[in-house]
């Protein structure tokens, strides 16, 4: 079989291989272009409490219910106040744990007496819906030790975070996996001591 005959027989194959080659080159070049702009490490969604305006959408926009955003208590920043702006409703007179006094709609903050006049507040993660009401209260009156954060044991790491899409303050972004939490006015490194 000479060369020209061979080509004649396999015309369709020839077209196919040419197209395949061009697809291959296209796919390869897309990969090549993008490879220069990748991150080796993984990234995860996190919100910046400094930008957060406590609009309450973290509670409603997440694909999970309850949301993967939780209030996280940065104990190092807490003043252990008796009158906690994050725990009590603004007009509360008796500082008791009665339900009508509490700001939290799901009773997710526990208040325990430590010593006079200090109280410790603890977030019960299973109950927290990430509405940010306590965060707003603590930030307005207290130290701002209650902060909203994406809890990475719950977050399913969607390709596009649906809260990020709805966040009015543009507070969500992808962070390197080595530093998955951002606390306002406090770095998590100190926490590990």
């Amino acid at each position, binding site marked *: 079989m000479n060369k020209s005959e061979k080509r004649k027989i396999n015309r369709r194959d020839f077209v196919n291989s040419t197209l395949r080659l061009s697809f291959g080159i296209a*796919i390869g070049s897309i990969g090549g272009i993008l490879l220069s702009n990748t991150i080796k490490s993984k990234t995860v969604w996190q919100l910046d409490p400094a930008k957060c305006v406590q609009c309450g959408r973290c509670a409603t926009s997440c*694909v999970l219910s309850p949301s993967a955003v939780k209030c996280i208590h940065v104990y190092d920043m807490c*003043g252990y106040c008796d009158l906690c702006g994050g725990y009590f409703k603004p007009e509360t007179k008796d500082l008791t744990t009665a339900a009508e006094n509490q700001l939290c709609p799901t009773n997710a903050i526990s208040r325990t007496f430590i010593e006079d006049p200090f109280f410790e507040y603890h977030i019960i993660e299973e109950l927290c819906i990430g509405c940010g009401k306590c965060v707003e209260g603590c930030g307005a009156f207290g*130290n701002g030790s209650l902060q909203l*954060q994406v809890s990475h044991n719950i977050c399913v790491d969607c*390709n*596009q975070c649906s809260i990020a899409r709805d966040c009015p303050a543009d507070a969500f972004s992808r962070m390197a996996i080595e530093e998955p939490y951002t606390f306002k006015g406090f770095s998590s490194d100190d926490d590990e001591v």
Partner: protein
Amino acid sequence: MKKKIIFLILLILLSLQVYNALSGPRFPKPEFESGHSQPTTQSPSPRGIIFEYIDVLLLIISLSIASWLALKKRSRKGIFWLSIFSIIYFGFIREGCVCSVGSVQNIALALFNPNYKIPLTAIAFFIIPLIYTMFFGRTFCAGVCPLGALQDLFVLKPYNLKSWVQTLLGIIPFLYLGLAILYAATATDFIICRYDPFIGFFRFNASFMMFAIGGIFLLTSVFIARPYCRFFCPYGVLLNLVSRVSKRHMTITPSKCIQCKLCENSCPFGAINKPTQIKELDNQKTATKRLIKLSLIIPLLAFVGGWTGSQFHENMAKVNNKVRLASQLYFQNDTTLNINKNSIDSVEITTFETSGKPKEQLYAEAASIIDDFYYGGWIYGTFIGLVFGLSLAGLSVLKYRNDYTPNKATCFSCARCMDYCPVEPDE
């Protein structure tokens, strides 16, 4: 009384201001005398990066197995069990993200936005199935993609669709892909992920709406097999194109087709090409005329599509958050428009106003996004016009075939047809 309270509040606020000026928290952390030890702040760590590499490795392994099962082993049973594995691992354990279908958007976003750093796994999930398809056909669809595998379980009583219905519905994925790329490239939204109908099942968690859509897809799949794969999947478009020229492909018969017609209705996806009769072939004259007509119609369709797309660019841009905020701000004080004040989402506006960013900057950014959408609209529309034109041309092109063969573009390599073939393999 009220005045007193206000005075007191003012006093407190003032004192706080002074305190703030001295720096440090408003209420310093107490030194406990009772020896109370402070609990540590909880910060559970995310899934380790090693799992990402395991995902890619499992993808490669399952693609290899799927290709082997479809082309060499010719085993429907094997592909079935592989798809069960995919549903369990890529679906329920992995909970969906990132999948090959969605990775199209990451690629588009990364190509148009140098600021976006794309994860290596997203590139891998995009490219690896395409490479396999280039050599072995759409074995990814057969039993690796969890979305396809889940629908495949529901293929119980499939009805064949008329070929023109199939062609017409087959255009939808192109529309969807184009739109998804347009929105991803303009960093607006990832619509494929947002409207993924099955991810809710994999997570046991979704809005009622998404559960309903997913349920409808699965129920439809009983009668119209794999509706999402055939008539919506945007990644399927790419696999479809690449698979047409695949080096090898699954075959219905292990050796030579004896034209027994047993496999004719075996494909639930209508992806078997029947042999063509000689008399169906056109004479040269009408074929030439049609070629001339098509060569005029296709560019015209592309142009009309592009123009139409560009006309709708503002509507398409409204999905973008920045554009929406800018238009809300711009029109909020315009009384002539008679906008219901409550309908405007005021959280965005108040947030923007407190952020201290100048309005002009936002307007400029929004204008540039709308500009992008104008060009994007042209490209998208032209693409759609071309797809319509070429589908039309495809309908009138008659390829001469001797035997029953799988349609390489739409065949999912599920291997169902093989069981119908009585031909024994050559030894």
